[in-house]
């Protein structure tokens, strides 16, 4: 995706994403001005909402957790040269895995149910990504179209299951019963209370640590393992990889499964960490935000951590902002996310030529 650049490395890695982000925020600011609000005041309210008080920080980190998983999922596929738009559907199906384990086995103690649910989320997410991966590798069908179709199929399937099969008996709203408390992943404020520290009540839970571990594991797998080397080679040059004797089809399929499993873990954060039951809307676009997170974070775990934090802050700050300013709804955040994807993903080289010129001028002197 990236083109050879004659910019210093730090400028490509840091300056350009920041400039792109700034451009996206500028356009958002213009829209806010257009509807008659003050963008600077809104930015202040958002930052305050996301980081200004302990509860806000808790929510920001809770959203960050899910975004780390879906961001890593998109990045895993990107490294193999695949654009996985199916994170939303994979997360949806992973939620089914979690739910089936919890509905069936939540009479067991937590140390049995929770690992099983984690495993189920990864297996279900991976399975839903396996089919598009297999079709891409073996039958040559385009991964983007198949994963889009799989999002719709997942949504139809889950609506049917929730409305007809998994719904709590006697209830009208399409949601499952509450899982037994043994299956709940401990909240951070509960853990802190055990240590004698008082934290505000937020949905931030132990899955956050799992997300941090995943970042490290992702780094080790992609950059420090033989498999990761094959993965990146296939992504950079499939023909070269084939010529070097790498099993290209297998690498593609495994990459998609890896991607789906990561997307699946986001369902754990939402279902076992926060809602403790499955409803129709639990994915809520988190899979799509993963695309923005990966693009902004340049597919590197450290970048993904920072950009997931940015999007977590956008989500939480945006929610707070919409309480203060009713004209600025959640959709404003969706617009901003779209702009960030556009500027950081598709127009990533927008500032390359002017920057390259500027650097040339500077080195001349």
């Amino acid at each position: 995706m990236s083109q050879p650049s004659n910019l210093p490395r730090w400028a490509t890695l840091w300056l350009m994403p920041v400039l792109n982000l700034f451009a996206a925020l500028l356009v958002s600011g213009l829209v806010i001005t257009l509807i008659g609000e003050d963008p600077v005041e809104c930015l202040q309210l958002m930052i305050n909402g996301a980081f200004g008080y302990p509860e806000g920080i808790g929510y920001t980190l809770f959203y960050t957790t899910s975004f780390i998983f879906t961001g890593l999922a998109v990045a895993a596929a990107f490294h193999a040269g695949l654009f996985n738009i199916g994170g939303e559907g994979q997360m949806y199906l992973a939620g089914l895995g979690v739910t089936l384990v919890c509905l069936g086995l939540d009479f067991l103690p937590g140390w049995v149910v929770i690992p099983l649910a984690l495993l189920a989320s990864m297996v279900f997410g991976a399975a839903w990504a396996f089919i598009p991966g297999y079709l891409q590798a073996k039958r040559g069908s385009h991964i983007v179209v198949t994963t889009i179709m799989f999002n719709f199929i997942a949504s139809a399937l889950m609506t049917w299951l929730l409305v007809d099969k998994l719904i709590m008996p006697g209830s009208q709203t399409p949601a499952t019963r509450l899982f037994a408390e043994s299956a709940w992943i401990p909240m951070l404020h509960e853990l802190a209370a055990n240590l004698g520290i008082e934290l505000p009540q937020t949905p931030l839970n132990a899955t956050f640590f799992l997300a941090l571990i995943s970042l490290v594991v992702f780094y080790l797998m992609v950059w420090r393992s033989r498999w990761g080397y094959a993965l990146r080679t296939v992504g950079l040059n499939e023909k070269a990889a084939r010529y070097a004797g790498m099993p290209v089809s297998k690498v593609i399929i495994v990459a998609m499964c890896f991607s789906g499993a990561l997307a699946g873990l986001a369902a754990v954060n939402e279902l076992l960490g926060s809602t403790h039951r499955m409803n129709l809307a639990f994915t809520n676009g988190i899979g799509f935000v993963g695309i923005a997170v990966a693009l902004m974070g340049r597919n590197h775990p450290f970048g993904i951590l920072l950009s997931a934090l940015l999007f977590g802050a956008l989500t939480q700050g945006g929610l707070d902002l919409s309480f203060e300013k009713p004209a600025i709804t959640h959709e404003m955040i969706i617009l901003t996310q779209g702009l960030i994807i556009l500027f950081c993903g598709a127009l990533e080289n927008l500032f390359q030529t002017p920057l390259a010129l500027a650097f040339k001028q500077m080195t001349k002197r």
Partner: protein
Amino acid sequence: MDSFFSVLDATIRVATPLVLAALAGLFSERSGIVDLALEGKMLAAAFAAACVAYMMQSPWAGLAAGMAAGVMVALLHGIVSIGYNGNQLISGVALNMMVSGLTPVLALAWFQQGGRTPTLDDAARFRSIELPFADAIATSAPLKALFGHNILVYLALLVIVVVSWVVYKSRFGLRLRAVGENPHAADAAGINVKLVRYLAQSISGALCGVAGAYLVLAQTGAFIQDMTAGKGYLALAALIFGKWRPWAAVSGCLLFAFTDAIQIRLQGSALPLIGSIPDAFIQAIPYVLTVVLLAGFMGKAVAPKAIGVPFVKSR
């Protein structure tokens, strides 16, 4: 028999925007630009059509505004994909998200009705056209299914004929297909690749504009948040299903619209032998069919060769 015609009637109604959007996608993709932005183009058009038709009290003004909005989104997609050689897939996804976010924000700011626009009066909508034997049409199901539609439906029919002529028989169509298959050869033959691609984007935007305007001016009568509800992707599926050919893509749209029309009829009723089918299964049919086709189990769908690859002029 009457139920057959009422299904036909519903199929035509549902198929019209799909057909327009699929043909829009055909222009874009045949020129070598992946068009995931169909959804965003339609949604922007629906919003513009609703606003302008409401303010001017005229469906034609709404239609023009819809087409203009569609072209604007298309040109944005063009600037990113053709001008800056950006990733076309990402551009499409980004534009869809942007439009899906921007439209309700503007609707709320301008009309204070929670992300939707005010309902249009009859004068600002496209109604079934008035024919001399209108009474006969209203009472007879077969006649209603064939002649009881609004003008945009017949316009769409005309568009199909024109598009298939343009793509296969006109000079522009030849150039369009050439830049989508082998832009470097086209370039060597003196064709301005980027210009042809920009033109294809504009046509795609205009057609999506009609499709989006149809949703508001002929169906709902107001803009509703995310009202396209995946129709752009469905049209894209139909285009692929039709192997990037106009008439085959139209057949795909009709098939998908038919599944939608029977789904409403089948709701809750049991079929012989199979029993009752959950709605969700029928909803999923178009997507499953597209996956199966793409996997090469129903003939091979071969995309335009240069699709998705930015054109960089060789020296």
